[in-house]
């Protein structure tokens, strides 16, 4: 299949890659660009393990074509660290034991990252509905909710 040249920013860096028009964004990011933090749990948009931020929105990268990222801004879990400083959400996930096997965690963090910008002081119920597109098989969610609340608090007072 004829390849297409696309450019976008990934974690604030300019990227140029050759992709097949049918290639999914998640595969290009994980396999060509070797950023393997975003995971694949279903490839049918149900689990959220592949969630990343594209142009200021949470997207499930298993159902986005790489060519759709053309000219866009992509942020993955690898981009949360800035100037060697963890994002408050990353700190809070550790603090509140918001992860176990870690497979859902990058997607959870990226969804929470966007969600807290949409709603900086969410209630528990709002977190539950705002993050419902991300599945976790290990934690039962309770500590993830705590982590998001803790991060929200810390970000507000920062």
């Amino acid at each position, binding site marked *: 299949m004829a390849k297409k040249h696309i450019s976008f920013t990934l974690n604030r860096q300019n990227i140029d890659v050759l992709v*097949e028009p*049918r*290639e999914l964004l998640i*595969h290009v990011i*994980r*396999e060509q660009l*070797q*950023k*393997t*933090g*975003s*995971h*694949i*749990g*279903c*490839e*049918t948009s*149900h*689990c959220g*393990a592949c969630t990343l931020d594209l142009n200021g929105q949470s997207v499930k990268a298993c159902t986005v074509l790489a060519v759709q990222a053309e000219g866009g801004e992509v942020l*993955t*879990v*690898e981009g*949360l*660290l800035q100037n060697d400083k*963890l994002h408050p959400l*990353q700190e809070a*996930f*550790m*603090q509140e*034991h918001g*992860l*176990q*096997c*870690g*497979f*859902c*965690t*990058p997607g959870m*963090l990226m969804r929470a990252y966007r969600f807290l910008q949409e709603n900086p002081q969410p209630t528990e119920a709002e*977190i*539950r*509905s705002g*993050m*419902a*597109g*991300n*599945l*976790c*098989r*290990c*934690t*039962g*969610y*309770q*500590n*993830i*909710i705590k982590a998001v609340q803790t991060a929200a608090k810390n970000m507000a007072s920062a």
Partner: protein
Amino acid sequence: MASTPEDKQRKENLAGIGCARKRKEDPRFIQGKGHYVDDIKLPDMVYGALVRSPYAHARIKGINKDAALALPGVLTVLTADDLKPLKLHWMPTLAGDVQAVLADEKVCFQQQEVAMVIATDRYIAADAVELVEVDYEELPALVDPHQAMVDDAPVIREDLVGKDEAGQGKRIHDNHIFSWEVGDKSKTDATFKKAAVTVKEEMLNQRVHPCPLETCGCVASFDKVNGHLTVHITSQAPHIVRTVVSMLSGIAESKVRIISPDIGGGFGNKVGIYPGYVVAIVASIVLGQPVKWIESRIENLSSTAFARDYHMVGELAADKNGLIQAMRVNVLADHGAFNSHAQPTKWPAGLFSICTGSYDIPVAYARVDGVYTNKAPGGVAYRCSFRVTEAVYVIERMIDVLAKKLAIDPAEIRRRNFIKADQFPYQSALGWSYDSGNYPAALDKVLEAVDYEGLRKEQAEKRARGELMGIGLSTFTEIVGAGPSKACDVLGVGMFESCEIRVHPTGSVIARIGTISQGQGHQTTYAQIIASELGIPSDQIQIEEGDTDTVPYGLGTYGSRSTPVGGAAAATAARKIRDKARKIAAHLLDVSEQDLEWDIDRFRVEGAPDQVKTMKDIAWAAYNNVPDGLEMGLESVNYYDPPNFTFPFGAYLCVVDIDKYTGETKVRRFYALDDCGTRINPMIIEGQIHGGLTEAFAVAMEQQLVFDESGSIHGNSLMDYFLPTFVETPVWETDYTVTPSPHHPLGAKGVAESPHVGGIPCFSNAVNDAFSHLDIKHINMPHSAFRVWKTIHAQGLDKRT
């Protein structure tokens, strides 16, 4: 010795047993630096994808690979005929049966592996799968296990025709696998005949799937030059994989290296050895290139490792006060097309005989018959010890059925039947020796915490108003930590666990353990155990698991064996080091060993508190100044063979409100008290309980793999297969008591599976309890809104007045 603030500080510095230590594995996971199988990319790596059967039962009349092979980028297509010369088209299962690696002349379940395409890119591999033409002749499918042994049932396993053995005892029909029985049948039958009250119910533990968020997969890499095979694999038992791979391939075990890297959840799904792994390994050997195979979610749900599918008939005999006199259980177990359940090899029904539960039942009898059907093979322990969920479900439901018949409160009937605290060690009618427990204390604590009486009052008021509210109890006993190797083995390898510890000259430590974490936080908790035993801060203790080249032989992590067996190995290995350290300390202090006492992180001379040698001093001395006759160095290995299983227990209570117009069940409250003996890391324990309860909730309320009469699986994607989201998942309240195990070096029992095992009957009892004022004895899981609504509707409860 009086504990001074300074002592306390020294203890705290260790962050040892009992500390809610933050997890050591988290920094890599939160930064996207986890290392899972699908993250691995090796030079020259190619991709495998499986061609799978669309039919549940069909003869393969021909396979045409030409079109697939003609696609640029396709390297090879492997079928059973290609594996035949290597004798790898069939493989032994852990249960003594054989399983087709690639379908040999016929397929026996939908999505069975028929061929593997190897291509330079995963997209090309997927394209080529579509181009492999398989000519099938469909055969009648056997879906209902109850029909498996009728006279004219289609024969699923033609390879076994005429054989009256399939590895686990006598067969009585072509579709029969084994009969297994335990207990005293004649005494049990006699007790039932005389009993004042008997109850009998059919109940189903439906076919479900553990569905960890990461699917199964591997990267097999055979080095043609030196004959070494390295396989990165999603395995809960890497050493077993090494032994099996060596047996199958003929490659010396010393040249096979299995690495389980980070694993994205297991829950039993990653115990088995699946055809995809085997074919990827063969392909790598044939091509001399690394081959990656990662299953899709649909493949995962339809082919690797279902759980349960136990069709049970439970019976209790009691006196009129509800004192249970006997229990009888008959089970029809649907094992699918191959008997590849993941259990200790000699235990075809796992540890099902724990089914007498927490109750002092004088006689009991259980029988399990396994049958073949045209469904995927497996039968894994989904977040439980082998068949323990099924066992706990039947007793915890049946005791409620008995309570209802006698109009005794479910809490009260439990109290009357509990094994009493002074009866431990308790010998159960079906042969177990329970190590320790205090069931009444656990139940009482829960009832008080939730104001049980108040809840029952509220329920009565609601019933008077026509509302549906249920209160479920579960006072379960688990059996975990397999196991004494004389009782349990996997393909002949005893179920011990191992730990090797090395203390370096400067006092930091590396420890390697034969288990493998899939999210349980072993790097954190094992270090805590060793810290407390050695007096070295846990932050200075590295834990390594999962690499068979470096880690001593271990049986892996499932059946809650890590703390009971792996933790015991770690503690015992550490104690060996401490014994040697004592000798070195005596030498350094010029006293006899008996004059020394251990004090948190040092030895001190009794009566001379200033004369001390810390573990750090001793570590240094171990490499330059040891007493005559003692070897240099400070390391040890322990292979721990547990004297018994451990028996964690708990008391759970669940309150549900059911909408009588929609059938929706809202879990208003769930209170879980667990007793896992000594608690290593309370934060991790609580996390495990949250996760286990969520999986229990999923099974009880919605999860089910459904098949139509042609054997087609329905609901094998996450569109249909229920995984609870943030929205449905209830809020969990946790509590604990501590009854240490007397035979475990630390008194610890294991915990991660209790919430699943104990949680399922608790939800189910709650839903059933909502209808206990009506003439309904038992409603099967899953308690989905539609199914609950059907019950409501049949009773006419949803009539609007």
